[in-house]
């Protein structure tokens, strides 16, 4: 069985929207889940966050990064994916927290931000606050892909101040924390930023739950590649996560091992270009 691609388009910077038909998966995706894609028969299993699940389709934001993401982007005649597996991982509890904040500054985080905002704003008693950071005005996604229209309070920041607030979400978040307006903070995106986020929120003792993107192979709990350490205890991000309490995570370990395959990935890109499959 193959999975039909129903949409693929650039949305800003090096990111594109990928929408596929996967009714069973779409029906069950909850905030905190992810999916695993295989794009071509010889392909790797790549984990992806989901932005939206509607009408039997799921939408994702993909960054053109290495071989898999670029080859899929460049392939005009690719109309199907080999596999869409999910939902994987543990969803978060859907309940009333009060002031719920989602912060993001990178492709996967923006997708999660959208889905969380959509779901949590509908739960009675929640006040949904969303913050999204982009480098400059040029990389900002079209409005329909931002969490803006879905939450109760929204902050857009750019690192250079070209649109919205100037700076990173961390700065605006600090103001909210000082005002005592956060009951729970969710975060996704750049891992070093999430590390900073954990350092920021720790003294305020506000629960801070973030998505870890450790490298996955099977994504079913069998290989241990995605292991992370939570208060020193080993957890597997694919089945125990991918969301964990940021204040307890060993970020140095995550960042170090995320770079393990850099050389091999560069080799794959080169090969891909030679085969004229990647731009």
């Amino acid at each position, binding site marked *: 069985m193959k999975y039909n691609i129903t949409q693929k388009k650039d949305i800003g910077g090096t990111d594109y929207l990928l929408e596929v038909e996967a009714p069973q998966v779409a029906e069950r995706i909850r905030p905190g889940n992810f999916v695993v894609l295989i794009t071509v028969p010889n392909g790797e299993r790549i984990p992806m966050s989901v932005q939206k699940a509607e009408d039997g389709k799921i939408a994702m934001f993909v960054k053109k990064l290495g071989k898999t993401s670029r080859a899929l982007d460049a392939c005009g005649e690719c109309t199907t994916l080999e596999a869409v597996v999910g939902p994987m991982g543990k969803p978060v509890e859907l309940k009333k927290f009060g002031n719920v904040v989602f912060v993001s500054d990178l492709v996967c985080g923006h997708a999660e931000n959208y889905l969380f905002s959509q779901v949590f704003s509908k739960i009675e008693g929640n006040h949904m606050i969303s913050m999204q950071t982009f480098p400059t005005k040029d990389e900002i996604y079209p409005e329909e892909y931002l969490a803006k229209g879905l939450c109760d309070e929204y902050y857009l920041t750019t690192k250079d101040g070209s649109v919205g607030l100037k700076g990173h979400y961390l700065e605006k978040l600090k103001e909210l924390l000082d005002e005592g307006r956060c009951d729970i903070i969710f975060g996704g995106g750049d891992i070093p930023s999430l590390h900073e986020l954990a350092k920021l929120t720790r003294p305020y003792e506000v629960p801070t739950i973030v998505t870890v993107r450790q490298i996955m192979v099977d994504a079913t709990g069998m290989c*241990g590649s995605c292991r992370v350490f939570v208060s020193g205890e080993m957890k597997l991000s694919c089945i125990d996560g991918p969301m964990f309490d940021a204040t307890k995570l060993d970020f140095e370990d995550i960042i170090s091992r995320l770079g393990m395959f850099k050389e091999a990935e560069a080799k*794959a890109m080169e090969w891909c270009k030679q085969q004229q499959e990647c731009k």
Partner: protein
Amino acid sequence: MPNIHIPRQEMPKQAPEDRRDNFNEVALGFTAELAQKEAQRCIQCKKPFCIDGCPVEIDIPAFIKFISEGDFEGALKKVREENLLPGICGRVCPQEQQCEIQCVLGKKQEPVAIGRLERFVADWGKQTGFDDEFHIEEKKKSVAVVGSGPASISCAIDLRRFGYQVTLFEALHKAGGVLQYGIPEFRLPKKIVDFEINNLDELGVDVKINTVIGQHVEFDELRGFFDAVFLGTGAGAPLFLNIEGEKLKGLYSANEFLIRTNLMKAYKFPEYDTPIICGNKVGVIGAGNVAMDAARCAVRLGADEVYILYRRTKKQAPARLEELENALEEGVILKELVNPVRVLGTDDGWVRAIELIMMELGEPDSSGRARPIPIENSEFEMELDTVVVALGTKPNRLFLNKVPELETTPWGTIQVDERLKTNMEGVYAGGDAVRGNATVILALGDGRTAARSIHAYLQNGKH
């Protein structure tokens, strides 16, 4: 006519210096001539002890007699009465500890090469397009089989032959369980596994890959939809050492090393997308089948030196002797009586060395093997750039976490009775999910036992 003066026939193999560089199958199998010659060694015992050694009780003298008479079809039919995956078991069964250890010839000389003969007839059947003849009487009731390892494959075949509507669910993108993702190509070619999966299709089993029970489909839903369920989810979760240095780059669980290499075909990177980084000096911790497979993959991935680091000695190694010998022939170095203390890293977080402590053997422990005891102040460092932890695996929590009402043992395996029934109505389990790390043939036997129990349950609704 039996002739015990014929020596045990050697099976042709790829030469060690050739096979170090490729993933092709090492053992090439008997020719018809060699098989018949080997078969003539069996003296057709009145009381064949070999059968007692086979977990599924194949009528060994009967099938061997057919081979000696050149009736390979008869032989294959005989084998298939009990074993539905002879091409696989003939390759990976620990024969020397099962059927062959019981063979009477083994007392004075070498036992009959039962496993090799079994493999021979299976391969003969595959080449000649042999097919079992049977008639399926369709029944309305349906059974879900979870997982696609040997336990699930055999359970699905038997249930289908009883006439049930069978759907098999596999989480990964390829079916076969450990046969597919763990055991390397050079020991069990994937075309043999794919052939068996294809046969399931042809038998009318609905094989659904990319489907994780408990995530994609909830267990309650599954139970609602099917009249009975078999759980063959295996014991695929990796074990680590819990020592310093397990965060380093270049340290893998054996499962990761093998999944990348076998399931994801990292040895064909970049043609296949998934990479593996295998250094020049590789240390594999453990001495079971999994450790041998990882070490031999490392050799083929181009490592200069590959060490098996084992806390006991060669004699106690749990791996199949044949595979241990194969590994040594390929240049793997067995370092006995050492235990890892910690893994040491470079400034940028890569494995640099391992600290080992020397061991000595003491009194036998509960497993009957001599207990290894650390020798005080004998720690030393060994330079390595890749470490593979091959200590075995435990049951996968992915599914079990989702079904807290399913009774498990203190070891995390699923609790069953002698009919392989769990504490849940209509739910049966077998293979590694129940036994922990066991063998292909035990898993296969469980699948058949469970199929009979499920058949009994669906016929009279009791249990």
